């Protein structure tokens, strides 16, 4: 899994995909704080730090739509792909690598560059 400059990441099994509701999210507690793992309508998973770049609202509690989540506190829309605030707002939430293999969700806690 070495490709050029990238580091091999350690993926950890955090549970079954079914544990995350479709168009929803669950949290994973880590030493660096909570990570929100999102599941979209087409079963793509994304992982972001569970803090909105605006006022640290828990993104895992927001409404997931398309590849974005609306923060429950003040309605900022955050792209799940980039972690960036969409529309006129600016700000970015750290992303984490996450993938699904054989129905299991695998999360890497190394921040994606």
């Amino acid at each position, binding site marked *: 899994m070495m490709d050029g400059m990238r580091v091999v990441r350690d993926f*950890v099994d*955090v549970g079954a995909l079914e544990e995350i509701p479709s168009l929803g999210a669950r949290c*994973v507690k880590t030493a660096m704080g*909570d990570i929100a793992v999102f599941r979209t309508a087409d079963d793509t998973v994304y992982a972001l730090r569970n803090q909105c770049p605006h006022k640290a609202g828990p993104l895992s*509690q*927001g*409404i997931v*739509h398309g590849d*974005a989540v609306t923060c429950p506190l003040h309605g900022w829309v955050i792209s799940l792909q980039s972690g960036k605030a969409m529309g006129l707002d600016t700000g970015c939430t750290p992303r984490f690598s996450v993938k699904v293999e054989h129905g299991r*969700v695998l999360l890497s806690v190394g921040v994606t560059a």
Partner: protein
Amino acid sequence: MNMMNSVRKKLVVIGNGMAGMRTVEEILQRTPGMFEITVFGAEPQPNYDRIMLSPLLAGDKSFAQIVLNSLEWYEANNIKLIAGEAVVTIDREAKLVIGEAGTTRPYDLLLLATGSNPFVLPLPGVNRPGVMTFRSVADVEQMLSIAAPGKNAVVIGGGLLGLEAAHGLNLRGMNVSVVHLMPMLMERQLDAASAHLLERKLTSRGMNIYTSANTEAFDGDGENGPVRAVVLKDEQRIEADLVVMAVGIRPNATLAKSAGLATDRGVLVDDAMRTSDPAIFAIGECVEHNKQCYGLVAPIWDMAKVAADHICGVAEPVFSPIASGTRLKVSGIEMFSAGAFMGDKSTEDVVLRDGARGIYKRLVLREDRLVGVVCFGDARDAGWYFELLKNGEPLGELRDTMIFGPVVASDDPDDALAAMADGAEICGCNGVKKSTICKSIAEHGLTSLDDVRARTKASASCGSCTGLVEGLLKLSLGTGYAPAAVKPLCKCTSHGHDEVRRRIKGGALKTIPAVMQALEWTTPNGCGSCRPALNFYLLAAWPGEYVDDAQSRFVNERMHANIQKDGTYSVVPRMWGGTTSAKELRAIADVVEKFDIPAVKVTGGQRIDMLGVKKEDLQAVWKDLNAAGLVSGHAYGKALRTVKTCVGSEWCRFGVQDSTAMGIALEKTTWGSWHPHKVKLAVSGCPRNCAEATIKDFGVVATEAGWDLHVGGNGGIKVRATELLCKVTTEEEVMEYACAFLQLYRMEAHYLERTAPWIERVGLKYVQEKIVENAELRLSLFKDFMHAQKFARTDPWAEQAADQQAGKKFNAMAELV
């Protein structure tokens, strides 16, 4: 018999459909009062718009909306309508018609408008219940009696009518298959390329399309039981609870034939629409003119004009059919075709194809003249092309750019409309020209779409030219045209709240994806604004049936607690009418200590708020509170919040009624109900109004004589005092009015609109008309509310605590520490 009757000539019309009644209208316009008119109709209804059966089936229209001539109209015009009786005999010698019930009427002139019959495939099983045609209101009613989400419908025939039926049934939530004999859909209106795009579009809406498919039989229960499947020649079986045959129509010439009139496929008529008997005219789908039969409305309107001129003796025009175009009335699919669109050796094509956008245009030219056109995916310029086709002028330079529409350089559709010739036809159904509309706007000072419809009939039939008519209003009036601006629900749709609610109910849409598909949402699963709104609208429309979508709930309603700025939650148990007990207070105190809850506060709604509860403690907190009989106060929801009370006549020296008991009864009845926004009630025991009922959504103030009911108040950023709805005398009345008011608000307000702005929008008078003046409606609203409450009065805390799956959301998925 009075004098008038003896001098007026008797006109009898056989057929109370669109063709017959349009002719009668034309006659009344030319020579009002000249005839004593009698109309026989085989169907029991007044004349309705048969073109609109598809929207009726789809739930986009109600029957009342598709009635063309109401019973009052017949009366006002002195027309005797004999509805529900088919004519069986025409005695041409005695000039008499005789109905099946024996009704006999003499005539001086007779007009046959007997229409056509749907063609029924002579296949085994065709008489099974569930196998039907699509031709009348009765057919639609029969379909709707079987149609239900998840059931299977098979439409035989992939032509115009068949696809409209399929679309309607699809919107009703059925699994729809279309079985078509030919290799491509709508082969009489489309060429191969556009038919392919159409098939792709329908398939993407979940329909199964079988082309080159030959039906062999209708299989079902036993010998004559209901249909269960359609069997094809290649032995494929398609499951079916409902089969709709839409394989063509046959002119209904039986009556004419038995009367000895000249017939072939239809009733033969000359250029004046006269049959072989000079006293008998015929028009519409039953006629055959120059070996041609007609099924589209535009040439039939021309027939009506020609026949009326001759019947009234005011002019002697000849019927010369002009080309007519076809549009498909399936929302979201733009399609138009006209003329010789298939082309042949003598023609050349100009084609524009954009597969990704699903757009296809084909113009067929012969000797530099436009003779055929097909537009798919974008039919905005259809009217312009159709005009070029009808004019038949040499195209010249236009040929090079015409495929891009009338105005190439501008992408403003208004410019295209301005550039359109005055004689261009805007409304194909009613044959209304651009100049006619513009002239009416100027002469009669018309300012709205409804005005134009009433005056000219433009866009009053199928409605597909509504955009063009609005464009003309804009061109004519400039900034003076203020269309009833509809604010879209959100960026995912162009539809407003009211339209969405109407379509949910009318289209029997019962899930968020079904709404998004039917109303063509531009996003795959909406956004944070529309999903909660749709979830509420569905919940309100289908109580007990709709399954609440937790992922479309705002966090507070999903967690059943109020999220605070630090991500913790606040918990507020219900205190009925603001009353509590030692047991409840003790349970609250214990919970506060046990879970180390940092703050406790009395709320403005007479309850106790525990603030700073950690997400993972919520379930345990609720469990302890539940054990003491405390339930969710819905302090977090767009729902019934509190019913605030004063102590009333039980304790207070001023109190005149028992306001506390009234408040508790109201809260016990209304709790758990979801609303467009939060709803607060209050009951004061005397006009001193200590419960502040006059800044509540529904406020009750006791008087010596009974109760004053106030509505539409709120505190908040913009304080609004209530307005007096009415005065009532008994507790039962308070309850009935309160629930009816809440139900009206739930069913009609926009999501996130509190009662105050709602009442300002619709007016207090509107609410009074529905709740105070109309006792029948009030009772039905009350009953609807009580029905919905059967499913709503449940404690979400107890449910969440018991449901392991639901419980997962309160805990981390994994801990990597």
